[in-house]
């Protein structure tokens, strides 16, 4: 974002070279690799040539299944793990070899990692205490921080006297008190119950806007990622599969993994001939670009009972299952040739039940082709 604001020819600072007017990105990771030795004597590649960065005060989510390297990536940014290869820059400065206590980033740990032998106030004021701030400054800042996270007045509580949600907030206040340039959050909400979790999702998001610093948020929950993020990096097997806005990732996934991991999807194999994609049941449609083979992705909500426009695909089949979810029905449709399709239909009182015949349509603009063949 910062880069876009200062384009070539647009001189924000006349007289200085264009290089120095560039606001450096808060974070820039280049070709980062990291592998671990396993106790059995093998090696695990936790990060495989990862390049990634923040362009400004963004909320970026690292999303991926357990074991894909999210925590490792976060730990290399905070300095707890050293990279095997690659560089990490914070605001343009190469910090690859800096120890964690020198890096201007703070972390909210999954386990909170609060200092149980100190009261809430010393936990929150720890960064300032370490930096040698005077008592009055620390007390003021601790008060501000507790106010910010909604725990005003709990200065003297012991950590053991706090609920899970309160511990979470203390961890957040502690990480923010030292005014980090970047906040790292490793699955901070996974231990909370559903209601509190939703509340914290909204609070974290608005907190990030208010503070105007970058947040890197780790989760394995795709719904959480879609709700909160400016951009999402989908990780699998230590590699970034795709990086983009939630909408881009949901509507136009670059590969099968992203399509499958983010939301529900129908993935239908395609045969390509003469610029057209041919479905197993013989239907075809015009392809943009020229993939040699691929997979058609259709989101369940893009299948409708009424036809939109002339072109598009039609699927005729028998309802194999129907699940009610309040405002709509989830339908599993068995189509000869195509296989089982998932659809979401509004409950208008006429959604056919199991066993009935049903015809569904999808418009051309809802079709997204992934240039990858299902194994």
């Amino acid at each position, binding site marked *: 974002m910062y880069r876009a604001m200062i384009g070539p020819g647009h001189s924000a600072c006349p007289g200085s070279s264009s290089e120095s007017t560039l606001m450096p990105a808060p974070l820039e990771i280049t070709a980062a690799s990291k592998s671990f030795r396993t106790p059995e004597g093998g090696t695990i590649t936790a990060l495989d040539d990862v390049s990634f960065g923040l362009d400004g005060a963004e909320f970026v989510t690292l999303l991926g299944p357990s074991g894909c390297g999210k925590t490792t990536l976060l730990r290399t940014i*905070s*300095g*707890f793990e050293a990279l095997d290869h690659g560089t990490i820059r914070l605001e343009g400065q190469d910090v690859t070899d800096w*120890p*964690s*206590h*020198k890096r201007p*980033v*703070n*972390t909210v*740990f999954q*386990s909170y*990692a*609060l*200092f*149980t*032998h100190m009261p809430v106030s010393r936990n929150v004021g*720890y*960064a300032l205490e*370490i*930096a040698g701030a005077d008592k009055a400054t620390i007390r003021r800042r601790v008060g501000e921080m507790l106010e910010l996270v909604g725990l005003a007045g709990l200065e003297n509580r012991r950590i053991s006297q706090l609920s899970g949600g309160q511990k979470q907030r203390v961890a957040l206040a*502690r*990480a923010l008190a*030292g005014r980090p340039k970047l906040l790292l959050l490793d699955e901070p909400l996974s231990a909370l119950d559903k209601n509190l979790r939703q509340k914290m999702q909204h609070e974290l998001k608005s907190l990030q806007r208010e503070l105007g610093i970058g947040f890197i948020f780790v989760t394995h929950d795709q719904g959480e990622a879609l709700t909160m993020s400016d951009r999402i990096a989908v990780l699998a097997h230590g590699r970034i599969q795709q990086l983009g806005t939630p909408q881009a990732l949901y509507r136009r996934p670059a590969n099968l993994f992203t399509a499958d991991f983010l939301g529900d999807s129908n993935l239908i194999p395609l045969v390509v001939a003469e610029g057209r994609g041919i479905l197993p049941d013989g239907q075809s449609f015009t392809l943009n670009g020229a993939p040699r083979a691929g997979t058609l992705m259709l989101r369940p909500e893009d299948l409708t009972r009424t036809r939109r426009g002339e072109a598009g695909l039609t699927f005729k089949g028998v309802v194999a299952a129907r699940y009610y979810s309040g405002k709509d029905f989830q339908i599993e449709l068995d189509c000869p040739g195509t296989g089982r399709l998932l659809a979401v239909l509004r409950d208008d009182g006429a959604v056919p039940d199991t066993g009935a015949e049903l015809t569904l349509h999808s418009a051309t603009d809802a079709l997204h082709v992934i240039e990858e063949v299902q194994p």
Partner: protein
Amino acid sequence: MKLTRLLTLYGIAFFAFIYAPIALVMVYSFNANPVNMMIWDGFTLDWYRLIFGMETGITESSTYIDSTPQLHAAVRTSFVVAFSTTAISTVFGTALALAVARYRFRLAGFYRVLLLVPMIMPDIVLGIALLIFFITIGMNLSVLTIIVGQCTFLISYVFVTVSARLAHMDVSVEEASADLGATPFATFRKVTLPSIAPGVFGGALLAFIISMDDLVITYFIAGTGDTTLPIHIWGMLRRGIKPEINAIATLMLLATIVIAGLGLYLRSRQK
């Protein structure tokens, strides 16, 4: 029904077997009979007065000759040794426990075993080995050799106690401290040490009590002029069993109970 009664009897017999001799020593220490301590001859504090060097009505024939000044010297030596070894072994034992728990290095398991061996090594073997070692390097036996020698196995006790505590400590707390800007030393001082303090304190206490109590190893490596309390008592016993020994034993027991009790109290307050 019958079985429970048998078990109860067994329980009573069991604890009597353990505690009756100790109780007897305590009772004997207040017995006024100077000749035969097994025959009660009225209550007295004279044996205690004697070992504290106060006036008593006891005749010389029923005491160890010239024993009290030597006893006091032995107690002093024991305290000097115990405080020194406790300080040294607590520092080194804690440092070793931290190193083994926090750093990954080759043969870590092997070093861990090496650190446990001194605890299970027969005292006599350790005593002989230390004696020969000190003679080989030309070191005269003295208080210093006692301190060095005792540290070789007291470090193991501290190591084990602190390691147990470290095993329960969450590493991410130390990482959080570093993350918030603390240097490794500040993290140790403000986070690690307070978290493992009960283990360090327990290890120090254990080291102190074992040091005060050690006879076999110390016997081998003590110089002739430097007698610790256990060695002194051993020497007294070889000159016959006289009533004042009961008072010394009772006081040692009392001191141990006070130290251990203090430890337990401080530990319970920490939680």
